[in-house]
């Protein structure tokens, strides 16, 4: 694996930007930019800052530079019978761990396990004063100081240049099996409930459906795919009870947003507290997170946002017109941004698009 410590170069580039009051667009591999996340002009790339700093299988801990491709890390961990504790989407082979932290996205296995944010133990970064700062650490439990490392997850690089991150790992499951079921939309709510009982072994679930024929009353029908993992004996017994067809569903493509479903010109996901009908006619849909995340191609963003809000959820638009930010955090996002980046140099456009609208809700 390529090893390169570019801390000094990144620090020098940042100092130059600070001296010239030049905004910078922090980027990694760029594999997520086309999901409404282009960081803007004047790029400061951390992609060359890569390599493993510390991997201790006994500690279930990996400390790694931000520009390291996730795929390479997965190979390294698998050789020791381990994996990331979170399910991390990788839109491209070269998708970096730093980019994953910046976006804070989670794959279909999120409900059964931890979010990426949950697995962050610490980080080192450059803040907007040009200072090199470290927060958290490499141990499992740590409450010294404010948790500024988890705050970086999903911050889209607006608070600083992430240099390295320490992540919690888990052992690989002993074995994994996939099953599929043909299911109509009307049966779905029962299925999501039923899956709860499978939880210790259920790794991920996903329904892919399209509007049914006129015969089916136009109702949506499709396939429910389940991924189970655990000890061999337990899995065997559970599968016998569960039934279903063996499945070749491509979970990797789903996690990495490379399933054909995600190629629509417009793409959004609705995140809900639990499965609920949206009362919006959909041509096709993909639902994961045990019903709590509904993917919608070519939907009306504003209508989706209204429907989501009514049910205690929110919408994330990955392709298509972005939506105004709606949250109850008051002016905290602006204040926190100022505390890290007083001159407002980092990823300005992303900040305005995704964090700037809080005031409207006061």
């Amino acid at each position, binding site marked *: 694996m390529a090893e390169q410590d570019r801390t000094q170069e990144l620090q020098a580039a940042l100092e130059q930007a600070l001296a010239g009051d030049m905004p910078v667009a922090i980027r990694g591999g760029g594999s997520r930019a086309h999901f409404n996340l282009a960081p803007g002009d004047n790029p400061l790339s951390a992609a060359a800052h890569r390599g493993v700093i510390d991997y201790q299988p006994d500690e279930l801990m990996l400390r790694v530079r931000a520009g390291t491709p996730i795929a390479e890390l997965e190979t390294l961990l698998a050789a020791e019978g381990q994996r990331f504790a979170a399910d991390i989407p990788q839109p491209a082979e070269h998708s970096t761990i730093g980019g994953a932290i910046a976006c804070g996205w989670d794959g279909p296995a999120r409900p059964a396990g931890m979010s990426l944010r949950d697995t962050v133990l610490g980080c080192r970064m450059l803040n907007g004063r040009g200072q090199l700062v470290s927060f958290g650490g490499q141990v*499992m439990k740590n409450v010294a100081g404010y948790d500024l490392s988890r705050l970086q997850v999903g911050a889209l690089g607006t608070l600083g240049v992430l240099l390295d991150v320490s992540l919690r790992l888990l052992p690989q499951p002993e074995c994994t099996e996939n099953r599929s079921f043909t299911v109509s939309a009307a049966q779905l709510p029962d299925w999501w409930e039923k899956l709860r009982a499978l939880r210790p072994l259920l790794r991920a679930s996903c329904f892919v459906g399209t509007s049914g024929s006129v015969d089916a009353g136009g109702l949506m029908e499709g396939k429910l795919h389940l991924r189970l993992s655990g000890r061999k004996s337990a899995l065997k017994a559970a599968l016998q009870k569960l039934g279903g067809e063996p499945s070749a569903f491509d979970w990797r493509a789903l996690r990495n947003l490379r399933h054909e479903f995600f190629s629509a010109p417009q793409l959004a996901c609705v995140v809900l507290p639990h499965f609920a009908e949206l009362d919006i006619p959909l041509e096709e849909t993909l639902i994961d997170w045990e019903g709590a995340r509904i993917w919608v191609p070519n939907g009306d963003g504003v209508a989706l946002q209204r429907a989501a809000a009514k049910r205690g959820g929110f919408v994330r638009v990955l392709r298509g017109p972005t939506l105004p930010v709606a949250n109850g955090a008051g002016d905290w996002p602006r204040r926190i941004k100022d505390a890290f980046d007083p001159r407002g140099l980092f990823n300005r456009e992303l900040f305005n698009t995704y964090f700037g609208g809080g005031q409207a809700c006061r």
Partner: protein
Amino acid sequence: MNNNSSQLLHKLRQLLPRERLLTEREQLAPFESDALPVYCERPLAVALAESEEEIVTVARLCGEHRVPLVSRGAGTGLSAGAKPHGRGILLVTAPMDRILAINTHSLTARLQPGVPNLQISQVAVRHGLFYAPDPSSQIACSIGGNVAENAGGVHCLKYGVTVHNVVGLRLVTWDGEILTFGGECLAQPGYDLLALVHGSEGCLGIVSEITVKLTRVPAETRTLMADFASIGAAADAVSAIVRAGVVPAALEMMDALVISATEAFCQAGYDLDAAAILLIDLDGDPLEVDAEAALVEAVLRKFQATRVQRAQDEDQRQRWWKGRKSAFPAIGRLVPDYYCIDGTVPRHRIGDVLQAIAEFAEGYRLRVANVFHAGDGNLHPIIMFDGREPDALERVEALAADILEYCIQVGGTITGEHGVGTEKFNQMAIQFGDAEIEQFLAVKNALDPHGLLNPDKLIPSLAHCREYRVLRKKHD
């Protein structure tokens, strides 16, 4: 009392009923400290809040009059994080103890901040659910305090600490604004302010409502106990279990001192000849638990356990755990005073850190008992002493400082779950450099611009840090 304070008290008297605004000396006495009473101070007044509106009222008035505001729940904290401010108001949210809703679809519970931790599970169990983080004080400690400290517990190895189990918060700012972070979903848009608030020790705002994630009660829980002839062997077994691909629900260690103290206290059934005991919970699918129990037993034997037992029934299981949970009162019976600290180290360093602690203790003529969350590397050395001896507390504090700084040295941290509070204020200067402290202070200043919320806790000033570092250098 200055003019500002008397005006504030005058207004508070108009807005809060008499029995919930305490100003008399004898009324204030029980609130002078949290569960670390070596640090105490009498506040100007204690306000007992019964609603979010009352929190808002108190915060707004304190903000207007620039009077410090310390908030607390049940006061079971172990780092003097809820020690009152001598010129400030102590706002107690313990009376807000209602479970507002349990949602069996989203598997969440919406709670007022004063709900005792254990009560959540006692109610949720009717739906086959429980709230996973289980600090030792769970009978008494409140969920609001758990958020402020990011509390952990015995079962955090598998289920995570408070921050992993909270999906939504309402928070009152220094000037009385109500903010909402997260909701009931497994994700949230915007900055992860839930993470920022957890462990912020009441320095950024006052938590007025919490939505927690509930977990399904596992179909099977099995407890194993292993005896070891040395602490080192037990410590090696801890790493080996994790390395073998098993994540136990709990993995706890006790040393000989704790074993004998708890045996005398509650007859848990521990082996008095063991130098160390590991107590291990495995839970989940029954067949999976079977497979993992066999795996763990094999590892324990390979790593020189002198005896490995499975709890035969629920009664035995409960007895074993009762011993673990009674460790502190059991030690308390042996000595006039004890002082518990809370560092985390990498698992593979547990053995040598325990060795170092014993050596440090000898140098200060003190004894240390160890009972801790071995799976997380989260140590809780209990320093035993007699406060009546003239220099005892000084020696204890010096030993605690040495232990915490050794934790930092081996790649760990000064606190895993008890918080910094007043107690570890100095050690922050050792764990962090000026740049980090400056960043912490910038966040604090951005969200509490007049420094009114729990002043002089958690983050020391740069000047304080520099002073302490000089002092420690002299000590070396």
